[in-house]
Structure formats: C-alpha cells, structure tokens
C-alpha cells in the first residue's frame, strides 16, 4: 500500500483565438476497491459552463462549454490517493462484463496479431489471468517501446505490424489477444509513479475479478498506478475531447507527477 500525491496538468495553446469551445474531460480518478481518493480538486479554464457526469463505464466526466474567444485552455487535477488496497477488483455487476469480450475497431485482430497469437497454446483449464500474463510477457519481450512511430489513431493490428509503439499500443494488442481467447478485457487510463505523462494498461477478467496488468512495463499492477478511467479501448477513455470554432493550430502540453508521500 502507498499514499500517492498526484497532479495532472494539461494545457492547450492556440496560435489564434478560438470560440464556442466544447469539451469533455475524463481526468478524475475515483475511489474503488483498489484505490481510495482521499482528496481531489479539479480546475478548468476557461469555464463558462461546467457540469459533472458519470459515463456508462462509471468514469467521472467534466463537460462544459465556453462561448467567448480564448487562446488557452487548461485543466489541472491534484489529489491524494491510497493505492494497492487490494490485488484485484471484484466484478460486481456481471451484466457489465460481456461488452468487454468483443473486439472494437481499435483491437480487431488482423494477420499480424493472429500470427502472434499462434505462439501460445494453453491447457483447457489455464486460468484467464495466466493466459493474459503469458501474453504480456511475450509481448513485452517482442514489442519494442518507441515513441513517435504510432499515433492515437493506430490500431492494435497496425502497431503489431510495425512491431513498436507506446503504452496505448501495448494495451490494445493485449486486449485483442485476450478477446480472441474470449477473455473480457478492458482498457485503463491512469497515472504511474515516475511517468511524466498519462499511462495506459489493461484489466483482465477472471472468475469474478478484474486483474490489472501493465504490458508496457511487464508488471502486475500493484500500488504504483492510479486508475483514472476504463473502457473498451482508447476511444472510451479519451482524457480530453473537444471541438471549437476557429482556425488555429494547437499545442498540447501534458505533465503528470505522482510521488509517494507516505
């Protein structure tokens, strides 16, 4: 168990003013079986209209609208979390599990993933968690971590073809492999100690429990991760989504700081 202080900062700079800006932010971690958020505060600027909501995956959302012209948009979330409270999460509502068993456009396997999947053979009674761990280990040793070769639109299959990518790609490939085995698996966005940006990993369902695996680091998630949101893939967990009116180029800066305070 750890007590972690976290700070998430995202800022957008526009090189020309924009207006009628709408945004949905999924950037607030919530308390659960594995982590407890002991305090949290979130600031959004500009913020003419702000509302809070919960999406269909149970993620906390802030959505809002700013009509007036602005050239800067920022979000910062700070708080404290107690992590590593349990080795798994109990999957309470069984009717919320089925949707994670099916491939999405991001995770749909193609020839490269199918080929990779041929490397594995499992006994009939191999637990799902063990299968997932085998995927993770193999993926970690085969797939190369490299920034700048993939984009947020890159699918699992495309990343697999390239053989390299970032945490989003590792996670999508993991999801694809698990779902090919009929294992419900979900995408997680969160923060990790020592990482300067947001992070992604997966959770895998096994006999009524969700287990968290971080394929980018070949880790079974313990107490260094703070979960922000879950979904079927990246699209369900996009931290900042927005539309605005104006012809401007935007520069996004994200900084994440997670440090142990107790």
């Amino acid at each position: 168990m750890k007590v972690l202080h976290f700070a998430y900062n995202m800022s957008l700079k526009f090189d020309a003013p924009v207006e009628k800006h709408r945004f949905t932010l999924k950037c607030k971690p919530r308390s659960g079986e594995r982590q407890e958020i002991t305090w949290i505060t979130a600031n959004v600027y500009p913020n003419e209209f702000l509302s809070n909501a919960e999406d269909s995956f149970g993620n906390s959302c802030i959505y809002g609208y700013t009509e007036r012209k602005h050239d800067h948009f920022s979000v910062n979330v700070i708080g404290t979390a107690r992590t590593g409270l349990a080795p798994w999460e109990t999957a309470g509502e069984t009717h919320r599990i089925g949707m994670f068993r099916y491939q999405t456009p991001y995770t749909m396997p193609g020839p490269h993933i199918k080929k990779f999947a041929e490397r594995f053979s499992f006994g009939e009674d191999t637990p799902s968690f063990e299968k997932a761990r085998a995927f993770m280990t193999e993926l970690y040793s085969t797939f190369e971590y490299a920034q700048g070769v993939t984009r947020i639109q890159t699918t699992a299959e495309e990343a697999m073809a390239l053989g390299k990518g970032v945490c989003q790609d590792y996670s999508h490939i993991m999801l694809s492999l698990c779902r090919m085995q009929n294992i419900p698996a979900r995408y997680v966005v969160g923060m990790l100690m020592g990482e300067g940006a947001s992070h992604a990993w997966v959770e895998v369902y096994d006999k009524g429990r969700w287990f968290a695996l971080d394929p980018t680091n070949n880790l079974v998630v313990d107490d260094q991760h703070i979960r922000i949101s879950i979904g079927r893939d990246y699209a369900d967990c996009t931290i900042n989504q927005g539309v605005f009116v104006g012809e401007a180029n935007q520069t996004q800066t994200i900084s994440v700081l997670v440090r142990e305070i107790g």
Partner: protein
Amino acid sequence: MQEMDLYRHTDTVNKLLARYGVRFGIYKNNEFREQLFPFDAIPRMIGKQEFEYLEKGLKQRVMALNLFIRDIYGEKKIIRDRIIPEEFIYAGSGYLAQCEGVCPPKGIYAHISGIDLVQGKNGEWYILEDNLRVPSGASYPMIAREFCRRSSPQTFKDNHIEDNRNYADLLRRTLDHVNTGGHTVILTPGRYNAAYFEHSYLAEKTGAHLVTGSDLIVEGDRLYFLDYSGRREPVGAVYRRISDDYLDPMNFRRESLIGIPHIYDIYRKGNVALLNAPGNGVADDKGIYYFVPKMISYYLGEEPILQNAPTYLPYYEDDMKYVLEKFDSLVLKDVAEAGGYGVVFGSKMTKQQKEDFIALLKKEPRRFIAQEVIDFCDLDIMEGDTRVPRKADLRAFVLMGEEPMVWKSGLTRFSRDPDSFIVNSSQGGGFKDTWVLSQ
C-alpha cells in the same frame, strides 16, 4: 372488389402530390435527386376485426421490444437466461455501450416504430422486420388521404374508413408524454435527406419546430433553441430524424457536423427526451428479429400473436444445415444492410455466385439470416386502364405514449416491377393508401 370512383383518380392524386412537393430524395452517382413517390389509388383495405387482431399483435410486439431494450441496457436478464446469445447483442451494429445504464424519460426506448408486415396468400400476416431507429413513411398516406378525399368525396361517404389524418395528433401525444419541459422540435439532418418532406410535413402538422443541429445548443444542463432575436428557449423533447451516430459528436461519431454536442450528456441526466431513444437499434437488427417471438414469451409470458416469417439463423448448426439443403427456396439477408439492399434469393443465383455466397455464409454465419420466400398476397395496381397484381407490404406505425397506440392506417408500398419482391421506395416502388374499415 367493386370498382370505386376513386380508382379513376390516380392521376389527380399524383398531380396534387407533385403540387405539394411530396417527394423523397435519393442519391445516385453521388448526386442528390428528389423523386415523386408514385401513388396508386386502389387502397389496401383491412377489415375492422382483422385490424383489431393486427393491433393487438403489434402492441404486444412493440411492448416486448421496449422491455428488451430496457433489459439490454440494464441487467441483461435475457442473456443471463440464455434466450439470446450474448454475441448477437455485442457484435451487432445496434448496440451502443454509451447507453448502458441510461434510462430515458418514462422508460420508453421505442416511441415511434415502423413494423413491416406482409400478408400471405393464405391470409396470414407475417412480420418482415421491425424498424425502431428512425422509421419513415407515415406522412405519405396521411397527405394522400387528404387528396383522395378531395378527388372523390363520394367514395368516403359510401365507405366507413378510419380517418388516418390523426397521425399528427398521435405523434404529438407521444412527444408530449415524454417532454421534460420546454419546446418540442423535430431534428432533421437537412433538406438533402431522403425523408426531408416528411420531416417538414410532420413539423407543420404537429406544430413542432423543424430544426437542424445548429439551431440547438446545450448550456449547462439544458438544451435550448436559439431564436433569431437572441433568446434561448428551453427544449424538452427532440424527435430526431438523424441516426445515433451523428447525434452528438462528443459522445458518438466525432466527425459529425450535424449533431448537437453534449445533447447526450443532458439526456443521460433526464433533462431532455430523445425520440426514438439512442441505442434502440439493438432491437431491430435483422439478427435479433429471429428472437422477437422468444422475447414476447420471455418478457410478457404470452404467446406471440403475430408470427415472424419462417426464419433460420445459420449461426445455429441445425439451421445452417437446413439453409444449405433448401438454399434455392430461401431468401438470404445480410443483417447489416437496410432499405432492400443485401437481400438475395437463392433461386436467382448462378452456380458461381451460390458457391461464393455459401463460402461467405460459412465464414460469417452470424452475418446472415435466411427466410422462406412467402407467397405474398398481391395487391392490384392500375397500369393505365388495367388492373395488374403486384407485390406489396405494409408498414404499420406503433406509437408509445402513455400506452401503445397503433395508427389505424399504414404505408402500403408496392413494387412496380412484376418480378420483384422488393418494395422499398429507394428501389423505385410506389405506395397506396391503407384503409382500416370502421364497420
């Protein structure tokens, strides 16, 4: 059937339809064109008792469909109890994860349903498909009735026919029932939509405002109509004629320019009614159709009153066997397609086509359903001065207000090509008025 004065007025009515701009749009070679919807004056007649039977069956069906959608976005008991295999839900195109746990105002998901039926030569009615998303077509018989009465008043004096021009009233009641407080609007994708005439006509007749996405705005947790004088008028019900995908770029397809950002978020909070409810397409997938009779028994504990056309799911081994055996006598439908597309007749395929199709069927069994070709009861149309029989179907409209209501009429479409079974308007068919006799 006796000859009525009205039958001589096909041209008159068509002229009036043209005068009032009664059209539907189609895209051909990427170009938008508006076409007149040819009208035939010989009506489909349904007796009072027969319609009462249809009415009962349709209400039952739509009630079950509504319970099904509520279950699917809630506890999913029907999956748990193994009535429907999970993958028919999650791998289908109609299921939207964004709708999980969302309860629409008054728990209604299917407000306006268009149920397609055909009558077999044996007199039996069969359900062909359920259209729950944005079914269209009610405006055509509604306005045609107006012109038929004008053309041949005596016909309507002599016959006891339910007045179908009350559709606007039924629709208005349905809209008002779920309105959360504020104006009622009809949201259209714009005039280059196939059903634009209907959108504008229903707006005129219900007194709702016809709007496009840019006329509406979400501020805080409410939806507003932007008046030109700068006022913001609250909106409580949106009869949206745009598909789920395009409804809200912040929650569905991000590139949508015709939607209203964040409308789905305030709907989730219960601050506006959307008709029909997003995600209700999970119940009108052609693959799900097979299960509707089972739903009726499951949710209502009743025997289905109206039958499906005999349908086989190649997904099940037994059915696959049957389909391969009887291939030539079946019609096969791609569950992802609509509007008369993706429908093929086993008997009309060449040897090569058949081989290719069967290979595809074996590879993706869930993608297709197979049905017996029903020997439709043909309806006569006038071709010049002669009556000729043509294939026809009936789209019945069921509206869910405080209680389910079946419009005492419907859209009867016919195929103009004597060899065609496909009656869809986008494939060149025409339409008839549908009379429900009141005595």
